[in-house]
């Protein structure tokens, strides 16, 4: 108590500290500190409800409440902070500032909410104005304190029984008397021996007895059920020896009612000696019952919350207090014993919330306040003890004060890591799918029921090359990518797919630069609940596969060809050799039976001819066999033009004899990588064939020229000879021992050999011919 040095502060303290709670005392301590600092002066003013003249309840410098003060107080509405200028200060205080002896530059007026018929109080601030942060802190302090103080003021007036300004007593003793007799608590004074000296009216009410014979009693009245004298109780003894003590106790009144009361014993001292004890008794029965039921309900709530796996929090904006339950903290990995300390809830929030979420959370509360709704829900992340962030769903309930400002926000937090993870997993798998969709080599186009393109990936762009050169676009009809001629066919195709049937087709696409690509296009219906919702067009680039297939077919054909040759070979062996040997056999038997020398000579001559033919046949067969033995041929760079010239030279005799016109129109710079013997043989064969089968009615003409196909040289050999009936002989043209003209030289081996050689080098021969017009052979090297 010695620290209340300032006379006014002490006076105020002495006046009410006995009757007020600790909280109020704390406030007065702060007020005292303000007085002591001489920088802040607290002015407590009482304002008359009807206006006009008022009184300053207690100030350090003025005890009159003038109209100008009333004007100031009137302009302050609940929640306002009024900050006056220097002029306002002098206007408000008049000459009072001189009394304070300390220059004051500004006034902050803070109204007492809900009590505008009574008073306000003003902080008069020192020369250095407070910065914004301090101002806000002061406001919060004053709001919190104001509630308490308001209560204190109300009590004073109740205690004093003074409701009229006019009868406002000037003598403090009248105050004390009034306070004593009208105090809502039972207040009585005991001697140190425990004898009741004085009691207020409330005492009899509480204890349910009359004052008859109680004054001067030894205090057994107090605990009628036990009959124990007050002076004998432990707590009283403490107070009688100068200590103050407060405790709850259950009593039974003479009427038999059970009550729970709170008793505070306060020693009355004079010159360091305890001369008496004040007893303040409050009936807390109701409070206890309420508390009990509250505790019960709290317990139930706790069970519910625990079961629900949520943590609750409660933030009192006025008191600047907060509370978060163990579950709340457990979500962030804290035991209650490890929970870090924060100045207030805002501080806690700033420290724990993910920086990215601050704005979102603030916005949610702000919106709820602005809309006047009581509750809101917002997801944000809070920092776990381990440093990572925990996603939570926070549902808050806002309680508004009488000033319509949020007074309290409470709610629950729920850990949504799992649903968040599930959400992320879905997102991830969607991303994976997207990655596949984007990066796969297969082109995809998603088409909806209405045949509009929903989506497509990069490789799918080739689709446009199919029929119609147009950029793929989402939302565009799939029909836009085909020519009108293809419309009917496509319509049939799409309706089949939408009917749930998968469709597949192959497409050869030739790009502008002649690049040939093969695509396999699949139309797969996408159905949901048995209904086709659309389809997926997948375009697979299968050129490699098709080429491999073609290669395989080629190899197969080559093998078949070889097989055919082998069959031919066996045919020759069986047919040609047999026909010769048959002839020889017949000749020999005729020779044996020859009747004269002439006949014998004739037979001998024929035998010679047959022997010659047999020799030819064997030579030809040798050629065929040796051709198929050449596994590794030497390849050289050969000038095609030169080789044609060489063949002309070889056949010069026939060319001149038949007056053949040979046109060598092959460019001289064409160089083939080929086997020299083969090339020579091939050209010689075609040229000699052309000469051999020249049309008898016109001058024979043979032209050699070249074109290119897929970058390879194609040699055309065109004659105006007899031609070949391809319908009849096409399949046998290159067979061994196949002759189609009644020509003496025809042996049926030239084309067979030529074809074999070209095949062997990986090329092919095409033929166009019309009987009596001529023939064109195309050799693809």
């Amino acid at each position: 108590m010695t620290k209340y040095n300032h006379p006014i502060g002490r006076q105020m303290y002495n006046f009410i500290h006995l009757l007020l709670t600790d909280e109020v005392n704390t406030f007065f301590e702060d007020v005292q500190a303000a007085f002591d600092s001489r920088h802040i002066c607290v002015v407590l003013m009482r304002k008359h409800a009807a206006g006009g003249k008022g009184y300053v309840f207690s100030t350090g410098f003025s005890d009159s409440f003038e109209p100008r003060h009333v004007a100031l107080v009137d302009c302050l509405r609940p929640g306002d902070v009024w900050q006056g200028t220097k002029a306002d200060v002098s206007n408000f205080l008049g000459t009072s500032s001189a009394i304070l002896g300390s220059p004051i530059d500004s006034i902050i007026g803070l109204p007492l909410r809900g009590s505008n018929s009574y008073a306000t109080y003003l902080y008069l601030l020192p020369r250095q104005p407070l910065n914004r942060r301090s101002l806000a802190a002061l406001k919060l302090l004053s709001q919190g304190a104001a509630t308490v103080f308001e209560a204190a003021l109300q009590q004073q007036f109740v205690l004093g029984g003074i409701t009229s300004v006019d009868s406002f007593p000037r003598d403090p003793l009248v105050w004390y008397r009034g306070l004593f007799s009208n105090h809502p608590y039972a207040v009585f004074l005991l001697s140190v021996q425990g004898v009741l000296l004085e009691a207020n009216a409330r005492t009899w009410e509480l204890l349910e007895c009359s004052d008859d014979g109680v004054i001067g009693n030894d205090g057994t009245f107090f605990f009628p059920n036990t009959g124990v004298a007050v002076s004998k109780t432990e707590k009283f003894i403490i107070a009688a020896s100068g200590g103050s003590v407060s405790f709850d106790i259950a009593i039974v009144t003479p009427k038999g009612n059970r009550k729970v009361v709170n008793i505070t014993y306060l020693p009355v001292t004079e010159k360091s000696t305890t001369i008496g004890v004040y007893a303040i008794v409050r009936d807390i029965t109701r409070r206890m019952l309420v508390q009990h039921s509250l505790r019960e309900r709290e317990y139930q709530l706790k069970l519910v919350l625990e079961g629900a796996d949520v943590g609750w929090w409660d933030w009192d904006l006025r008191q600047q207090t907060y509370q978060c339950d163990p579950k709340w903290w457990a979500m962030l990995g804290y035991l209650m014993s490890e929970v870090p300390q924060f100045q207030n809830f805002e501080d806690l929030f700033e420290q724990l919330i993910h920086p990215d979420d601050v704005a979102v959370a603030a916005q949610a509360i702000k919106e709820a306040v602005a809309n006047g709704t009581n509750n809101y829900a917002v997801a944000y992340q809070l920092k776990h003890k381990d440093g990572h962030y925990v996603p939570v769903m926070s549902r808050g309930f806002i309680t508004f004060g009488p000033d319509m400002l949020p007074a309290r926000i409470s709610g629950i937090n729920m850990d949504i890591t799992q649903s968040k993870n599930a959400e992320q997993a879905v997102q991830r798998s969607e991303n994976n799918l997207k990655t596949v969709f984007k990066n796969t080599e297969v082109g995809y186009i998603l088409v909806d029921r209405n045949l509009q393109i929903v989506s497509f990936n990069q490789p799918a762009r080739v689709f446009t090359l199919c029929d119609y050169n147009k950029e793929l676009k989402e939302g565009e009809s799939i029909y836009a990518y085909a020519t009108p001629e293809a419309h009917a066919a496509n319509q049939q195709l799409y309706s089949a797919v939408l009917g749930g049937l998968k469709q597949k087709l192959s497409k050869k696409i030739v790009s502008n630069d002649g690049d040939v690509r093969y695509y396999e296009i699949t139309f797969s219906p996408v159905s949901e609940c048995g209904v086709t919702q659309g389809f997926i067009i997948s375009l697979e680039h299968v050129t490699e596969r098709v080429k491999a297939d073609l290669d395989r077919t080629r190899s197969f054909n080559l093998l078949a060809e070889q097989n055919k040759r082998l069959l031919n070979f066996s045919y020759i062996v069986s047919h040609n050799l047999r026909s010769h040997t048959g002839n020889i056999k017949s000749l020999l038997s005729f020779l044996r039976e020859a009747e004269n020398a002439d006949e014998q000579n004739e037979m001998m001559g024929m035998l010679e001819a047959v022997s010659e033919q047999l020799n030819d046949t064997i030579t030809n067969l040798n050629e065929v066999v040796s051709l198929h033995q050449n596994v590794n041929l030497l390849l050289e760079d050969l000038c095609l033009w030169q080789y044609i010239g060489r063949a002309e030279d070889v056949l010069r005799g026939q060319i001149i004899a038949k007056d053949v016109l040979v046109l060598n129109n092959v460019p001289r710079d064409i160089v083939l990588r080929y086997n020299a013997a083969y090339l020579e043989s091939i050209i010689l064969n075609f040229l000699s064939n052309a000469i051999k089968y020249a049309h008898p009615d016109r001058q024979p003409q043979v032209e050699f020229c070249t074109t290119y196909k897929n970058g390879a040289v194609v040699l055309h050999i065109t004659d105006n000879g007899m031609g070949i009936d391809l319908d009849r002989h096409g399949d046998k043209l290159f067979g061994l021992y196949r002759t189609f003209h009644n020509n003496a030289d025809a042996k049926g081996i030239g084309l067979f050999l030529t074809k074999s050689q070209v095949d062997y080098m990986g090329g092919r021969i095409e033929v166009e011919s019309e009987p009596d017009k001529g023939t064109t052979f195309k050799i693809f090297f």
Partner: protein
Amino acid sequence: MKPLDSICIIDDDNIYTFLLKKTISKLNAADNIVTYPNGREALDGLIAQIKNGEQLPQVILLDINMPVVDGWTFLEEFADYKESVLKHTDIYIVSSSIADEDRKRAVQYKEIKDYLVKPLASATILKLVETHTMAGGEPR
């Protein structure tokens, strides 16, 4: 044995043709022997005979592998006349091919009496003359 009026040989092997002609003459198997070097000429000659109302040879010995028109083609074109005019003509395939393929193909032509392999033995020639006579094919 009464010789046939006429035998036709269609073959591009002139040595064989010569020898066969000689054998037939020796055997006195036919009074006339007609030869053609390929199917085209045979068709031309025989169809001309039909058109002129002349008698066709009673036996035709047909080679398969010939230039211009081979044996098979000959058969196909000649078949058009077979039913009406050629009832009394026996057609034999005579080939040095012993390939199964050829033999099987020959069976498919109902016009073909038999498939014979070169060289023809004298006994074979006599047999086919006899066959023609026995089958009631009246020598004309």
